[in-house]
């Protein structure tokens, strides 16, 4: 491999990582806040991706409105998911694990809705939605959608970290994740707070859906990419969005590295081995914050 | 000393920059009740946590019957004969009091997982056996009426007693109690003191006790360690402690002592 090729692969890895990070953050919001892996996020992502597709192909909207439509759709779908799959269980004080179960069911359901509406075939965003698709620097090529993803990720991170650390509503969301009852004793409307969390996560899901859709193609199974978010959010460590982002980018780089060296075939085996090694060495995840339950 | 059960040497625990326990040394002899007192955050619970294996100490060693148990896992320490209760009650969800107490017997089961799969008769025999024993301890802490009710929906004061029953069911030699008196009124505290004394005599236990209720500590303990900011600032008999000006200043305050 010559140097150019290595550089190109690094760019490829970072690009992949950028998209993963975007997906992972939306996923991790609910993980961190409500303490369960919300696989329905994949469904939110999928529906928004198709909404953006319809907006761009049927109504010829341009990039920014399409992204906005994706965000709004994401938020709406996420809130709907909350209503359908989580609200009742929460009100009846069901166990956390049920959220996981209903969320996966929701993912399947949303996926099937897409299968019925769009067939299992695939669609692509109009070619000219983004005028410049990629940039060449010398022999290197960088995809513009990935650059946008990277930028959006960074901005979203800044915003989210600010919201969760500094604003009352952000802290309230985290408080609710600890103890709903006590949170309501603080005068906080927990129902609204949870919805707020889903709105934020849904918006992130919407953006990632549209960007992922633009940079690839759409199929009803698009939402399954949420497993990358799952991997990154666990590896990232609980309670840290930064850790999640780092983990997502690392995952992208490692995948590309493995594909370019040993090929895609056995790379899940190596990733499995790396995962174990990493967790044994750093049980607190990338972020390093570990919340110990005091006895 | 011949009948020394538990000995800790230079036990230290740091959390980041905070030194929660600094070089604590102490012993517990067979058939003895000792207490640890000290202001909030002085490191009392942390000492219990280290003895029971919940936290590994930063430095220092713990000996039980002259065996170094510093690095042992909590369940191993329990098997050796050291049981504890929690300051922040930790009961199991959706379990009755009886079932909660029974968990302490699990590790004594004489059969393996394979046998249970094939419903070996020993399984039910053992179950009946421990049911009887568990009821005995539940009775001891006066919870017989609640044996079949959900442990977590009991009132706070009774939940503490479930914790004690569970610890007793481990049939320990050493019992570590973390604030058993919290949330009890004066009458109930009196009952508690009697209960602990009875346990102490009937089961010939050695007890290490943490509490902020001076009536509990002073009536029960032969010897008291006083912790402040992680350091052991004083130790002695109840009389000595009650009159130690350092302790009065750091912990007891004038009024309480005079009352």
């Amino acid at each position, binding site marked *: *491999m*010559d140097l150019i*090729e290595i550089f*190109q*692969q690094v760019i*490829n*890895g970072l*690009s*992949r990582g950028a998209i993963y990070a975007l997906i992972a953050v939306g996923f991790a919001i609910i993980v961190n806040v409500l303490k369960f892996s919300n696989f329905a996020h994949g469904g939110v992502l999928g529906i928004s991706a198709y909404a953006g597709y319809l907006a761009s192909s049927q109504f010829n909207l341009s990039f920014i409105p399409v992204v906005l439509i994706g965000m709004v759709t994401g938020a709406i779908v996420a809130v709907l998911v909350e209503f359908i799959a989580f609200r009742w269980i929460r009100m009846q004080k069901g166990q956390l694990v049920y959220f996981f179960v209903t969320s996966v069911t929701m993912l399947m359901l949303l996926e*099937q809705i897409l*299968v019925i509406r769009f*067939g*299992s*075939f*695939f669609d*692509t*965003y*109009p*070619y000219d939605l983004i005028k410049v*698709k*990629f940039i*060449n620097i010398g*022999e290197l*090529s960088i*995809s513009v959608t990935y650059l946008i993803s990277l930028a959006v990720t960074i901005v979203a991170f800044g915003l989210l970290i600010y919201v969760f650390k500094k604003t009352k509503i952000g802290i309230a969301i985290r408080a609710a994740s600890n103890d709903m009852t006590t949170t309501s004793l603080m005068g906080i409307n927990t129902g609204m707070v949870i919805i707020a969390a889903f709105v934020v996560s849904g918006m992130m899901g919407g953006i990632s859906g549209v960007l992922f859709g633009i940079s*690839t*193609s759409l*199929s009803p*199974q698009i939402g*399954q*990419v949420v497993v990358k978010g799952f991997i990154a959010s666990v590896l990232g460590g609980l309670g840290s969005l930064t850790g999640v982002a780092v983990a997502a980018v690392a995952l992208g780089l490692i*995948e*590309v590295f493995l*594909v*370019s060296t040993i*090929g*895609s*075939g056995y790379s*899940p085996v190596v990733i499995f081995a790396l995962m174990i090694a990493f967790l044994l060495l750093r049980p607190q995840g990338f972020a390093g914050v570990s919340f110990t339950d005091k006895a | 000393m011949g009948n020394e059960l538990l000995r800790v040497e230079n036990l230290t625990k740091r959390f980041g920059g905070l030194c929660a326990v600094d070089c604590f040394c102490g012993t517990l002899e067979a058939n003895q009740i000792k207490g640890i007192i000290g202001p909030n955050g002085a490191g009392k619970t942390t000492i219990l946590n280290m003895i029971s294996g919940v936290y590994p100490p930063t430095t220092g060693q713990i000996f039980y019957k002259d065996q170094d148990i510093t690095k042992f896992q909590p369940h191993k320490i329990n098997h050796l004969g050291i049981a504890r209760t929690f300051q922040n009650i930790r009961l199991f969800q959706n379990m009755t009091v009886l079932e909660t107490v029974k968990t302490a017997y699990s590790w004594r089961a004489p059969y393996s997982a394979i046998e249970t799969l094939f419903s070996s008769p020993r399984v039910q025999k053992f179950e009946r056996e421990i049911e009887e024993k568990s009821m005995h301890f539940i009775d001891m802490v006066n919870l017989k009426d609640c044996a079949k009710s959900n442990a977590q929906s009991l009132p706070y004061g009774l939940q503490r007693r479930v914790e004690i029953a569970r610890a007793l069911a481990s049939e320990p030699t050493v019992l570590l109690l973390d604030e058993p008196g919290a949330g009890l009124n004066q009458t109930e505290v009196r009952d508690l003191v009697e209960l602990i004394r009875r346990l102490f005599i009937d089961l010939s236990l050695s007890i290490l006790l943490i509490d902020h209720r001076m009536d509990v500590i002073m009536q029960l303990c032969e010897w008291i360690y006083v912790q402040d900011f992680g350091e052991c600032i004083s130790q002695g008999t109840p009389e000595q402690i009650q009159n130690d000006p350092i302790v009065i200043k750091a912990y007891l305050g004038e009024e309480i002592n005079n009352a």
Partner: protein
Amino acid sequence: AEKEPEVVQEETETEDVVAEKEPEVIKIGNLQDESGPMAALSGAVTLAAEMRIEEVNAAGGINGRMLELITHDTRGDVNEAINALTRMVVQDDVQVVLGPPVSNIGIAIAPISEELQVPIVGLFMEDRCTIREPGTPWSYMFLAQNSASRQGESIAAYAVQELGLTKFATLVNTANSYSVGLAEPFKALVRANGGEVVAEETYNWEDKDFRAQLTNIKGTDAEALFFPGYPPEIPLILAQAYELGLDVVMLGNNSVAPTGFAPTTDPAATANTFYPYGIDSSDPSVSDWAAKYEARWETKPLAQSFSGDDAIGIILQAIEACGDDVTSACITEKLNTMGEFEGLQGTFALDPTTHQPIGLPMAIFTITDGAPVFLEWYTPDGPVN
């Protein structure tokens, strides 16, 4: 482009309406992936079959009997496919089954068809679906289009012989039996013709980012890239190769046709692309059929629509030949001795030792300015005239 094969005219077949002896309908099973990942391809087959059956029924049915298509979903899952097939035969009493364009299901149901003794005509392109062991076919399994190996070999032969290429790279979805099934014969033929496979890259089912593999290929001296796969991946591979400046001949499979030059890909990205296809879409009879299909279903036909029409056509021809004796046994026998069949893909017969079409060439296409251009009919042995 020349007009090569003739297309069957359905209307003429169903002229002879027999007096109604027993108006019992003939049930044809349709085993398809309706809700799984291959639903689009399976759906195309179903649509083609339904359209054909509507027409036949409108014209009075076969030998005076109406036809009914009984569709059951496999969800792309083998166990469900077996359940569904059993259900069709045992409960719904179908005499013949139209199979899915999914090889894994085909391989799985081959022994079951033997047990149930029901003929299945399908689009499962893997040899193992129809060939039990070399020389012996599965008695009840029939393929209605060129096999994967024939398709792979045809494009390989074309690339070697017509384009004069010698150094190849492959990009294969190792999770996809179809992709794997095309790649192996491709590589074998290339090597047999003195060519070289200089890079063998792979990807997995969910992959949508092929830059790592393409960058690797760029680092070799490959002159052409063969990338057999399912439709969703194809525009991505083309676009990403273009982005990375991978300037080689791109060789596809029959999934390229309805997708690769979609208006969503930069025309520049599709230049220098060649792919085999079952039909010559520029042929008027084919394009007429395509227009009819589009008018009926409001969607463009896929490769599977054309071959699906042929598959149902073969079934109907066999049923017709059975006359009053529409039973599994008779249909199987007629399929075995079918003789010539005129379909959208051309005129072909089924080889009794393989149960696959014989003498069916592949249409080689290229893409010019984003539009498909028919080049010539080709077989692994060379061009057809």
